[in-house]
């Protein structure tokens, strides 16, 4: 019994510190499937696809994959995962036809954005404006840029550092709802704000 303890401890140490480079594949945060392919090992081309979630694969010598118990990950691995930044968030705000005025329904979205930025040190805020297909393309390029800048301006007024933010207008490109030219479509009059 006494003799077994040091042995167990030694086994734990071996498992805890990777002696050869190791890949640990995990499910995505949404629990989805993913894969990593080993394309080369010590200069030898190959294609060994690792798709078993909660697994460990050695990256030197022939890749071998074994299951791991995610509950028994090392403290270092857990700390590493816990330190991943939060997933970026994206919010779409809609505008009244031909204007840079937000629809009443989209107004509360601004408060959400301000809160998100304040909770994310080192945030990057990307504002992209769009229009529907009513009016000519050049005018819509300008309008979409103005929409993006309008939102950026409001966020700046609420204390978000403008140097964290960028605004671009994409006009009628990337319609959310496909329409022919010259069609008023509320779903296309929008600004998408991404906070990373």
């Amino acid at each position: 019994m006494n003799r077994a303890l040091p042995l167990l401890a030694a086994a734990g140490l071996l498992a805890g510190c990777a002696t050869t480079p190791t890949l640990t594949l995990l499910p995505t945060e949404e629990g989805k499937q993913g894969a990593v392919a080993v394309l080369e090992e010590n200069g030898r081309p190959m294609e060994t696809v690792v798709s078993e979630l909660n697994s460990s694969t050695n990256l030197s010598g022939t890749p071998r994959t074994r299951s791991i118990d995610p509950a028994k990950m090392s403290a270092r691995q857990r700390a590493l995962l816990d330190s991943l930044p939060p997933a970026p968030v994206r919010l779409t705000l809609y505008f009244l036809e031909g204007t840079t005025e937000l629809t009443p329904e989209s107004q509360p979205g601004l408060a959400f954005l301000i809160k998100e930025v304040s909770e994310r040190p080192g945030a990057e805020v990307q504002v992209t404006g769009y229009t529907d297909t009513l009016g000519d393309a050049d005018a819509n390029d300008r309008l979409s840029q103005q929409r993006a800048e309008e939102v950026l301006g409001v966020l700046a007024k609420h204390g978000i550092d403008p140097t964290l933010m960028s605004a671009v207008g994409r006009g009628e490109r990337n319609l959310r709802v496909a329409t022919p030219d010259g069609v008023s479509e509320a779903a296309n009059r929008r600004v998408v704000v991404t906070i990373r």
Partner: protein
Amino acid sequence: MMRRAILTVLGLAIMAQPAWAEIGRIKRSVGATAVERGKAKLTPAPGFQLLPGDTLVTGKNGQMSLTFIDDTRFSVGPNSRISVDDFTYDRTAQSGSFVTRVNRGSLAVVSGQIAKSKPDAMKVRTPTSLLGVRGTRFIVEVSK
């Protein structure tokens, strides 16, 4: 006079360059950390903007978290040396290429748009292997 004007214009162009080339931002930096850019050794703080070619270095108690402009997220563990050898991203097409080299230490990754854009557009190199990332969350560990 003319020459000064030209120099000023050049200066502006050079100053503006990093803003266009930004590939991601540091979100958290704890303990001994540095970003090596050419011969410069910079101290990252939240909001620090990364450029292609940057090397992330952490000491014994160092840790860094960062998010790239394609939504890829990194967590760098202690005693690490990790270089972003290549990063190109077209924000409109949401595609590009991304090569990271883990020389030593540990790196947790949640892949983003580049990995989604086409198979193996995102690669991770270790001293012994080359990995193609196909949209997932994973850890790579390389001991000294």
